């Protein structure tokens, strides 16, 4: 009888390690394991496979309601303005490039807004992606007001009857008040030139980030009211487990995942596939 309890402890530690090293976080890990144990105790089951399966099921039921799809063939309004925001280096510009190519392939008229007017070569980087995707890019001089680019891009999109405006923004740490204010202003300016814009405010998260991703989600959501999430670099060995806590705390759809640096490396978020990859 004592032997049975021993297996339990070892297994629990093993599971705890898998979950924590997937960046799920200590508290969420405890909750998952505790709920699994309760479920199994009720059914009087006590084997490792059932415990693992219960945790997987919990994760899927937490993430499934967060599967989201951007309206592509059923646009409620055009041009549909999508802002891409997030901290530095997470993959905003690259994700826009991938999405633009994808939309173009589905015969959508897309305009890119190079509203990162700060970082060295941010505009040339987006311009090259525009070329790859076969779509136009609206850009201003380095150092100019990013809100002016937003205004210009939406106006151009309206005149050219574009379906989408994908707005690239500068990477910014959520702790920088002035940069968060700049982002808010860009949203206000978009609404000014086209009431209701931006229609999507997406936070791009990097799967290699740890618990700080939760702070990023909190602060960006508080600042501009996010409408969805994108998780990049899932082709890395990182599992992106923080998304569980984020899914639990925020009713935000996870629209897309980045799985590489190429134009085709963009997929819809699938809860089952995500959980499967973690184990």
């Amino acid at each position, binding site marked *: 009888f004592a032997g049975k309890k021993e297996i339990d402890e070892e297994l629990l530690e093993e599971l705890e390690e898998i979950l924590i090293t997937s960046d799920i976080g200590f508290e969420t890990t405890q909750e998952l394991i505790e709920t699994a144990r309760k479920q199994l105790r009720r059914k009087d089951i006590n084997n490792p496979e059932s415990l693992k399966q219960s945790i997987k099921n919990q994760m899927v039921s937490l993430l499934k309601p967060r599967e989201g799809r951007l309206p592509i063939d059923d646009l409620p309004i055009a041009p549909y303005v999508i802002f891409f925001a997030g901290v*530095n280096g997470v993959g905003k510009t690259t994700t826009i490039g991938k999405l633009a190519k994808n939309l173009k392939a589905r015969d959508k008229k897309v305009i890119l807004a190079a509203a990162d007017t700060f970082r060295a070569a941010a505009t040339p980087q987006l311009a090259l992606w525009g070329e790859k995707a076969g779509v136009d890019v609206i850009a201003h001089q380095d150092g100019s007001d990013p809100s002016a680019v937003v205004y210009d891009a939406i106006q151009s999109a309206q005149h050219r009857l574009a379906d989408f405006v994908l707005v690239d923004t500068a990477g910014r740490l959520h702790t920088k008040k002035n940069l968060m204010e700049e982002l808010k202003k860009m949203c206000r300016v978009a609404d000014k030139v086209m009431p209701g814009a931006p229609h999507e405010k997406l936070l791009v998260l990097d799967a290699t980030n740890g618990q700080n991703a939760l702070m990023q989600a909190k602060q960006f959501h508080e600042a501009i009211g996010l409408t969805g999430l994108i998780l990049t670099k899932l082709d890395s060995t990182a599992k992106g487990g923080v998304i569980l806590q984020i899914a639990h705390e925020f009713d935000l759809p996870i629209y897309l995942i980045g799985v590489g640096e190429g134009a085709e490396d963009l997929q819809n978020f699938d809860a089952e596939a995500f959980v499967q990859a973690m184990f």
Partner: protein
Amino acid sequence: TLTERLNTVFKKLKGQGKITEENVREAMRQIRLSLLEADVHYKVVKSFVATVQEKAIGVEVLSSITPGQQIVKIVHDELVELLGTRHTQLRLTGVPPYPVLLVGLQGSGKTTTIAKLAHMLKQGGKHRPYLVPADVQRPAAIDQLTALAKQIHAPCYPSKTSDNPVRIAEKAIQEATRAGCDVVLIDTAGRLQVDEPLMAELQKIKEAVNPSDILLVVDAMTGQEAVKVAEAFNERLDLGGVILTKLDGDARGGAALSIKAVIDRPIKFVGIGEKIEDFEPFHPDRMASRILG
């Protein structure tokens, strides 16, 4: 904060007696929780807490500070010791020109950090940096480093996207000497540590130019995967050190402890902002306080 949590654990223990095994166990639980929240790796936390536990048991409870504060001091000192107690410089050994290679995952801050390093060297007055854009894969990567080089008035190799990174590095060394420069800072494309062909490419660059220093650039927000990444890069390249970026955010930066504990290479510098001047030598005591939260 950890101090507050530990004070709660020890609130019955006043200025007399010893810290016992029982009250240490709960304290260790709080420390473990705090370090995991700070993104320190699961296994590193385990061995760290075991070390601290040994040091904590039997410690005389002082009357001048709370037992909670005593434990925090043990944890803090242990962290500082682990993180490395001296600021380590760039390794510039042998005969110039000294090649310095920066490597790391996508988006970690390599290109920006090269410019910061070059600026720091120029300010120091003893070295003349030469910048080498050897990332031919990311759109406008060459433009990015070229623009930064202009900002700091440092010479930059005229790379083309049709060139091969190994050849760029080799030719750049010759150009640097011609330009009267002694430190050659080589920017590389971000890559996953499991991307075999790209990791092999780094080894080829290393063999071609025999770098004086090889630095792994790591984002301070990196989670549990920091260990696997650092181990792989270190195994392939025998790193000279680590640079931690984006410390101007609110990430606790536990990846720093994980990496140092596992590959035992010095964290040499930290990036504390997007501007060229936002660069400092690594301070283990500041990092320890930050990780503890």
